[in-house]
């Protein structure tokens, strides 16, 4: 047989890196056999419902649970008083603050957890929840972070009274959480005073919610005889949950088993530990029966973890040619009533300091203040790494503001400021080392694909024609993301370094099982991890079972968020596979009676160099591993790897968006969206494309409609799917995707992570397009979301 054909067939069989392998997860999902948390049913299981505060800020004078407890079918009604003896009425947050599990004398946001009703089924639990009588005394409310910092603002956290130092340093006001600064302030200020041109722009990144289609929930089951606690939980980080539960309950981690079953989307919503989970655990311990708690859609949208809510002021200093000299940023971050941000411990604003973007900016300074308000806690990363969406939004908007001021084309100004290919590795003024990037070819490829000059010509024509009913806007972003948290020297959660792990066991028949510390929420890990193992170890992907999400069997890992699965766990997978391959090499050498150095690895076998007829396949080697290994070698074929990445990875992309905005109605049509992503080595192109479509659609949702506004009384106004925008197939634009490949030099297979770039990169692209539509009328910015009403208001304010 022709060598090429044969190789092709073997590659095809292997289904390794680069293949559009069909997903192993699909058969169960397309047949309705997924196993999501609400599908779990245990003998004797009870159902729980949370009683929540209707007020945003109130003192609780009394709680009367008598009627609820007397209701037939009710087994328990928990309040803070029941949790106090266990010291579980408060719990630590991931950000070094504490959060009330059940309200302890006062509530500080609407829908705060007040009591937990456990009953035979969900109907009885809901009936009984209505019977819990809570006597509130309303207190003044503050939902605006700037007003929260006024001297006479209501005290949102009386429990912090007198604490002038928080987890991240000094607090300057009773509603202040932290101030975090990075960069050289003096040098930056000097660059501004010396600059030929400066621009400044305020912008609000509204409070939004990741809103996965499945809400959060858990089933807790405590076995009083064995002393074992098992919890099924919608968690993106099951091991971290186990550690937190261990800390809270003083049950040793060896007796706690956390299982993340199939998860119906996460997008950052399912990283934290929520009061409902803790209450379900307590109720199960107290009652000796399994307890299920599943939140409703409104509870999900109004209590478990918002994202963003950043008030940002950006400034750029530049010379007249548009070359940027300095960036200065001040942020007021609204964290709600408890600081429950999911950020690495040392960085209370996450990786916001990636905000110098793809540009060679010599000086920068950032200052972020976190503030308490009477809003629900969170600050999670909605399909992005910690605060990266905010950072990228800021710089991608600012560079457009500068372009408009200098009357330079928006593609051209980016080219003038790009970090050049030769400059990598590039140290940013805010202390990050960008490992790789190649921005110019990416942008040029996009401009050519859409015929940028023709688009600008069409725009000029339309602007010149007063009878044209629409405004045309062209948005460009050339963003750099930072993902793969992260090196344990700079990143930890609760003191645990942000490594990740993989364990592989090869069975005697040559098939294998691999277990990881991450957890898929739709990313297709079962499919892609097997591809990495296939390419690295020569075991066909179809022969590899991938398991994750069960803390009793999986090695410890920090979980899946911030696009860290491929950069961190994917690296552990590759390295564990290589350990397998190296042991296999020794066994093959022993079997073939040659030295290991005389062998070369060829897809799925070791061949003797110069005598390729002499070879051993991985299948043969696996069998030998259990009966015929070299002297002194342990039997078996297994490997474990804990990977602590040396650096982050820096995926990038160039996006272009064309919108047509109706002058009289504000209605906006996304005519075209072209997304070029560079995620380094591409493991499964089909899955990458799917992740990009999904990320772009979520970006479209955020830019065009999502927000969780509050009224002055602290009522949340976006708490149902009636009010909170999730795009349907009708509104969602058609996406065009493209790619370049710039592998990460420090990652074992050069991969960088992809799922979040399209979200991070597309939101400013929509904003840039919307602003560009009005740019000739003097608009430099207007805030998201661009629903028709808001756009119409803006058009009207310009006299259109």
């Amino acid at each position, binding site marked *: 047989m022709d060598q090429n054909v044969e190789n092709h067939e073997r590659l095809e069989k292997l289904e390794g890196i680069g293949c559009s392998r069909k997903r192993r997860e699909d058969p169960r999902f397309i047949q309705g056999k997924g196993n999501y948390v609400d599908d779990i049913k245990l003998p004797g299981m009870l159902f729980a419902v949370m009683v929540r505060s209707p007020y945003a800020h109130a003192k609780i004078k009394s709680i009367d649970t008598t009627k609820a407890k007397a209701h037939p079918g009710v087994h328990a009604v928990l309040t803070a008083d029941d949790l106090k003896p266990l010291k579980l009425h408060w719990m630590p947050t991931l950000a070094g603050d504490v959060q009330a599990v059940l309200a302890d004398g006062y509530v500080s946001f609407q829908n705060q957890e007040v009591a937990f009703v456990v009953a035979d089924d969900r109907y009885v639990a809901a009936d009984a929840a209505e019977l819990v009588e809570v006597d509130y005394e309303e207190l003044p409310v503050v939902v605006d972070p700037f007003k929260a910092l006024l001297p006479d603002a209501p005290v949102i956290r009386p429990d912090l009274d007198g604490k002038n130092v928080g987890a991240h340093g000094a607090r300057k006001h009773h509603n202040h959480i932290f101030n975090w600064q990075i960069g050289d302030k003096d040098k930056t200020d000097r660059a501004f005073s010396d600059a030929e041109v400066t621009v400044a722009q305020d912008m609000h990144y509204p409070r939004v919610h990741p809103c996965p289609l499945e809400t959060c929930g858990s089933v807790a089951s405590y076995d009083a005889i064995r002393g074992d606690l098992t919890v099924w939980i919608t968690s993106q980080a099951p091991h971290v949950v186990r550690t937190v539960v261990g800390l809270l309950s003083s049950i040793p981690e060896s007796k706690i088993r956390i299982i993340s079953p199939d*998860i119906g*989307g996460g997008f950052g919503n399912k990283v934290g530990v929520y009061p409902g989970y803790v209450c379900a655990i307590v109720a199960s311990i107290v009652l000796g029966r399994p307890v299920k708690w599943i939140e409703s859609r409104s509870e999900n949208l109004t209590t478990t973890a918002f994202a963003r809510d950043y008030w940002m002021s950006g400034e750029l200093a530049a010379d007249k040619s548009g070359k940027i000299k300095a960036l200065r940023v001040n942020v007021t971050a609204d964290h709600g009533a408890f600081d429950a941000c999911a950020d690495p411990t040392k960085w209370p604003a996450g990786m916001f300091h990636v905000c110098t973007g793809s540009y060679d900016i010599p000086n920068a300074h950032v200052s972020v203040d976190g503030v308490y308000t009477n809003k629900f806690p969170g600050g999670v990363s909605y399909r992005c790494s910690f605060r990266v969406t905010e950072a990228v939004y800021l710089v991608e908007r600012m560079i457009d503001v500068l372009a408009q001021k200098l009357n330079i084309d928006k593609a051209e100004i980016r080219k003038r400021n790009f970090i050049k290919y030769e400059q990598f590795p590039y140290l940013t003024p805010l202390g990050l080392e960008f490992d790789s990037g190649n921005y110019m070819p990416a942008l040029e490829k996009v401009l050519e694909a859409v015929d940028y000059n023709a688009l600008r010509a069409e725009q000029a024509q339309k602007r010149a024609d007063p009878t044209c009913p629409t405004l045309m806007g062209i948005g460009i972003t050339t963003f750099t993301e930072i993902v793969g948290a992260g090196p344990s020297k700079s990143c930890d959660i609760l003191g645990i370094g942000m490594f990740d792990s993989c364990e592989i066991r090869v069975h005697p028949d040559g098939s294998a099982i691999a277990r990881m510390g991450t957890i898929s929420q739709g990313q297709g890990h079962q499919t892609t991890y097997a591809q990495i193992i296939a390419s690295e170890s020569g075991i066909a992907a179809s022969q590899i079972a991938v398991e994750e999400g069960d803390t009793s069997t999986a090695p410890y890992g920090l979980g899946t968020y911030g696009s860290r699965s491929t950069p961190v766990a994917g690296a552990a997978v590759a390295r564990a596979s290589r350990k397998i391959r190296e042991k296999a090499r020794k066994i093959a050498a022993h079997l073939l009676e040659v030295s290991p150095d005389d062998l070369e690895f060829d897809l799925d076998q070791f061949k003797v160099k110069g005598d390729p007829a002499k070879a051993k396949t991985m299948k043969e080697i696996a069998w030998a591993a259990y009966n015929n290994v070299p002297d002194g070698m342990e039997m078996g074929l297994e490997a474990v790897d804990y990977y602590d990445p040396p650096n982050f990875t820096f995926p990038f992309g160039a996006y272009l968006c064309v919108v047509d905005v109706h002058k009289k109605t504000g209605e906006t049509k996304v005519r075209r969206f072209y997304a070029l992503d560079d995620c380094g080595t591409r493991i499964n192109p089909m899955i990458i494309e799917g992740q990009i*479509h999904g990320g772009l659609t979520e970006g479209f949702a955020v830019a065009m409609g999502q927000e969780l506004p509050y009224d002055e009384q602290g009522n949340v106004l976006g708490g149902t799917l009636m009010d909170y925008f999730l795009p349907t197939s*009708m509104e969602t634009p058609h996406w065009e995707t493209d790619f370049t490949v710039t592998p990460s030099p420090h990652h074992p297979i050069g991969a960088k992570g992809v799922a979040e770039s399209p979200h991070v990169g597309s939101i400013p692209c929509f904003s840039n397009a919307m602003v560009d539509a009005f740019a000739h009328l003097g608009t430099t910015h207007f805030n998201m979301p661009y629903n028709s009403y808001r756009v119409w208001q803006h058009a009207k304010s310009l006299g259109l």
Partner: protein
Amino acid sequence: MSKKTIVSFKLNGAAIDVMVEPRELLIHTLREKLSITGPHIGCETSHCGACTVDIDGASVKSCTVLTVQCEGAELLTIEGFAKGGVLHPLQEGFTQEHGLQCGFCTPGMITRAYRLLQENPNPTEEEIRFWMAGNLCRCTGYQNIVKAIQYAAAKMRGETVTTSHPLMAEISA
């Protein structure tokens, strides 16, 4: 607790009698009493379509119908699609065209698409997008769902079909 009634209907071809409170929603009866956990709950307010089932030849959001309303009805859920181990063309299409990620919307999507193809065996992209607008997906951005439905439609019309994601497209030996 109110008095319970017995409701009888056909579910994926099998005769079912189930005892429910008059207020019980069909989605809860299916999921909690009949072990039909394919249809999911994404909102309980008729917005998301994750709970979609087919009742007497119409797509219905089962969080918005009482079980007692189903007396004598014929119900089809995702569990009734594969026959004798053979996947329905829609199920095949969703896999081949990567029309799902987390899978939470998928049973509702497929059930809704089934109704569409019953009424219109050769829908345009626009028609598909219009018909599917009551089913939300947070993961896929719909583009591959459209392709999955087109794949199934072609297959059901007896045409030859291939995936738009060939295994080795980016690999050369």
